[in-house]
C-alpha cells in the first residue's frame, strides 16, 4: 500500500484522506483530525505505543495469568512478546505453511500479508507479578502498583478482574485486533493463559468527540496526547520519581475498569436529570451554564450542580491539575443479563504517571456521585504499562528484569 491515495481498507472504513478522520477522544472536536489509515504505528521509542498515539476504533484488553515457571521463563515471555509486537505492528508478509501436514504457522485471518491497520499492542504488568515467588521481582515493583481496591459502588467479579499481565490491542478493525491476539496466544500459550478479556468499540470516523453509551460526549476535557510536555507531566512516570525503581521511567500506570451502564434505566431518565448528573448538555457537550463544548466549565454557575460528574472528576483548581488522567476507553456491548437487560457499558482505560495522584484521587472524589445509580463497575484492575523499547537488543520488560 502506498501513502498516496486512499487504500481499499481506508475507503471501506471511510477513513481515507478525504473521508474525515477518527481522532483521539477530544481531538477531532478541536478541528484537528488525525487520519488513521492503514499506516503502521511505530512500536518502538521511550514509551509504548497505544497510550498517547491516536486512538483507533477497535480496542481489546486481555488480562493473563502467568504460567512461566521461573524468571528465565518470564524473560522468554517478554522476549517473545517483543518479537511478536514488532512483527504484528509492522505490517508484513505472513509466514505461509510449507508442509500441509503440519499445523500452519499463522491463523490465516489476514491472508497473505498483515496490514498494520494502525495496530498497537501495549503490555502492562499487575501487582501479582511482583508478589509471585517464582520470579523474585518484589524489589522491582512500581511503588504505587497495588491490586485494585474496592470502591463503594463496585461489584467486582474476580473472574473479570486483576491479572499478572495486561495486553491492550488497538486497531482500525476488530479483525486486526483478534488476529494479533491469536498470534500472541499461539506464541505464548505455554507461558501465560488468558484470565479475562473485553473488547470495545468507538464510533469509527466522523468529527467531534466520541459519545459514550449514555449519549454524552466523553473526553472533551481529556489532556491532549500530542502535548509532549503535558504527557511528561501527567502520563509518563518520570526518571527519579520518589520511591520508584529506575526501570519505571517512561512507563505509565494503567487503570482498566469495566463499568456496566444501566442503559434502559438511563433512557427512562428525564433529559434534565441526565444533564445535571454529567454537568453537560447532551447534544452540544457544553458545560451547564456554557454555550459550546469547549467552554471552560463555570462551577459557580447556578445551573451547575455541586456534584456534577465533570466537576468531581476535574474541579479545575490549581490543586487538582496534577490529578488529571489520560482517558483512552472504549464502549462495550456483550449480551443480555439474566433479567433481560442489555449488558453494555464503558471499558474505562486511563493512564497516569502516578496512580495515587491520578485515578485513585479522582475516583475518591467521584465515589458516591449521582451517576453511581446508573452504573456498576464489575471488573478491571490496576497495571503498570512498561516503558518502551529504545535500542537494538532491548526488549519489553528488560529493565524490570534487571537485564537492561
Amino acid at each position, binding site marked *: 500500500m502506498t501513502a498516496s491515495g486512499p487504500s481499499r481498507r481506508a475507503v471501506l472504513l471511510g477513513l481515507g484522506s478525504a473521508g474525515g478522520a477518527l481522532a483521539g477522544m477530544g481531538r477531532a472536536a478541536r478541528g484537528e483530525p488525525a487520519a488513521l489509515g492503514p499506516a503502521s504505528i511505530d512500536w518502538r521509542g521511550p514509551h509504548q505505543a497505544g497510550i498517547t498515539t491516536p486512538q483507533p476504533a477497535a480496542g481489546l484488553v486481555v488480562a493473563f*495469568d502467568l*504460567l512461566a515457571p521461573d524468571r528465565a521463563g518470564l524473560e522468554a515471555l517478554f522476549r517473545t512478546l517483543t518479537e511478536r509486537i514488532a512483527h504484528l505492528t509492522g505490517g508484513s508478509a505472513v509466514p505461509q505453511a510449507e508442509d500441509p*501436514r503440519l*499445523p500452519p504457522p499463522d491463523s490465516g485471518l489476514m491472508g497473505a500479508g498483515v496490514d498494520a491497520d494502525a495496530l498497537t499492542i501495549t503490555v502492562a504488568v499487575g501487582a501479582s507479578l511482583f508478589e509471585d515467588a517464582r520470579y523474585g521481582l518484589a524489589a522491582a515493583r512500581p511503588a504505587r502498583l497495588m491490586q485494585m481496591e474496592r470502591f463503594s459502588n463496585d461489584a467486582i467479579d474476580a473472574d473479570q478482574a486483576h491479572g499478572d499481565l495486561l495486553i491492550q490491542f488497538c486497531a482500525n478493525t476488530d479483525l486486526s485486533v483478534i488476529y494479533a491476539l491469536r498470534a500472541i496466544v499461539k506464541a505464548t500459550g*505455554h507461558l501465560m*493463559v488468558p484470565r479475562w478479556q473485553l473488547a470495545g468499540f468507538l464510533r469509527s470516523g466522523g468529527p467531534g468527540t466520541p459519545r459514550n453509551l449514555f449519549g454524552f460526549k466523553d473526553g472533551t476535557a481529556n489532556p491532549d496526547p500530542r502535548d509532549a510536555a503535558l504527557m511528561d507531566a501527567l502520563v509518563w512516570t518520570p526518571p527519579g520519581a520518589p520511591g520508584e525503581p529506575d526501570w519505571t521511567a517512561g512507563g505509565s500506570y494503567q487503570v482498566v475498569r469495566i463499568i456496566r451502564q444501566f442503559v434502559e434505566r438511563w433512557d427512562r431518565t428525564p433529559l434534565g436529570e441526565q444533564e445535571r448528573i454529567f454537568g453537560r448538555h447532551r447534544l452540544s457537550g457544553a458545560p451547564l451554564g456554557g454555550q459550546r463544548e469547549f467552554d471552560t466549565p463555570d462551577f459557580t454557575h447556578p445551573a451547575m450542580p455541586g456534584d456534577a460528574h465533570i466537576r468531581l472528576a476535574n474541579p479545575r483548581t490549581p490543586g487538582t491539575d496534577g490529578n488529571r488522567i489520560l482517558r483512552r476507553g472504549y464502549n462495550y456491548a456483550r449480551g443480555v443479563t439474566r433479567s433481560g437487560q442489555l449488558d453494555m457499558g464503558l471499558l474505562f482505560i486511563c493512564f497516569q504517571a502516578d496512580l495515587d495522584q491520578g485515578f485513585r484521587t479522582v475516583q475518591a472524589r467521584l465515589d458516591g456521585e449521582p451517576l453511581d445509580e446508573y452504573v456498576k463497575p464489575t471488573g478491571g484492575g490496576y497495571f503498570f504499562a512498561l516503558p518502551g523499547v529504545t535500542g537494538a537488543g532491548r526488549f519489553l520488560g528488560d529493565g524490570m528484569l534487571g537485564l537492561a
Partner: protein
Amino acid sequence: MMRAFPRFLSLALIGLAPATVFASGPVQITITRSGCEPSEVAVAAGKPTFEITNKSNRALEWEILHGVMIVAERENILPGFTQRLSARLDAGDYAMTCGLLSNPRGVIRVVAEPGAVAGPVDPMDLVGPVAEYKLFVQDEAGAYVARVADFVAAVKAGDVAGAKALYSPARAPFERIEPIAELFSDLDQSMDSREDDWEHGVKDPGFTGFHRIEYALWVDESTEGMGPVADRLLADARDLADRIKGLAVPPSVMIAGAGALIEEVAATKITGEEDRYSHTDLADFEANVVGARKIVDLIAPLVETRDPALLAGVEANFQAVEAVLARYRKADGSFEGYDMLTRQDRLAMQGPITALAEDLARVPGILGLEV
C-alpha cells in the same frame, strides 16, 4: 507408567556420534556357541546391512529387537553359512539375538547421522506400534466393560457409597482410549455427554450415561430411577468393546490421538467441569495423560530421529504434568478432589499442557502423516 524406550540414552548417543566408527560395508556378526562376536555394534540410522555367519553347531534364527518388538529377522541360518539382512533402523538402541536362547543378547546402537533429516515414516515402521496400540486399546476396552459392570451392579443395588467408589475407576479405561472411543460418536454421547451438551441440562431426556449417574450419586445422593440408565451404560460399554475388536486402527488416528487427548485436557479437564458433581476430574485427567503417553512412547523412536528436540520437550512436559498429578495421588492410588487443587497447581499444569498440545499437534506431520 513404564517407559517403552530408552530415548534419553540414544539422545546422548547422538552427541557421541563423531567418535563412533561405522563400518562402510555390511556389518559382520559371527554367532558362536556362546554368543555374538562382536556383542555390540554401532551403525548409522537408515537401512544398514548385516552379514551373519553361523559358526555354532546348530541352525539359528537371528533377530533385531526393539523392546519386545521384532524389527527384523532372518530364519534358519545353517551352521557354516552366512546370510545377509537389511533392515530399516531409526536411531536408538536395539537388541540382537545370539544363537541359543541362553546366550546373552547383543546390542545394536543405531545412531542418527549428524544433520541427517529423516523423511516420512516408512508405513512398515508403523505396523508394530499400531499393532501394539490396538492390543492396548483392546485391553482397556475389556477392563472398561468389567469395571462398568461392577459400577452398574452397585448402582442397581442402590449402594450409593459403593457406586461412588467405583465411578472413577470405571471411567479410567475409557478416558485412556478416548481417541478410539470417540470414533463411535453415538456411544460417546450416550455414555459420556455432560449436562451442558443438552439444551435442557440435567432434566433433558438425552442426558444419560456416566454423568447422569454421577449427578444422581453426588447431588441427589440416590440411585432412584437410575436402573435403566445404568443398564444402558453397560450395554453401551459392551457394544464399544465389540466394535473396537473389529476396528482397524488407522495409524493417523492413533498418532493424532495423543494430541487429541491433550486437547481434551486443555479444553475441559483443566477447568474441573468434566466431573463437576463428584470432583473426580484428576482421575480422568490422569487417564487422558496416560493414554497420550502410551501413544507417544510407541512412536517415540520415529519422532526422535526426525525431531529430537520436540520429543525431549514432550517428555519434559509430560513429566511436569505427572509431577503435579503425583502430589494429589492418595495412598490407594485414587486422587484428591479437583476442588482441592490450588490455583497455582492448576496453572502449573496449564503451561505444560498447552505446550504438549502445541507439540503433539506437530507429531503426525513430522512423521509425514496426513491426519
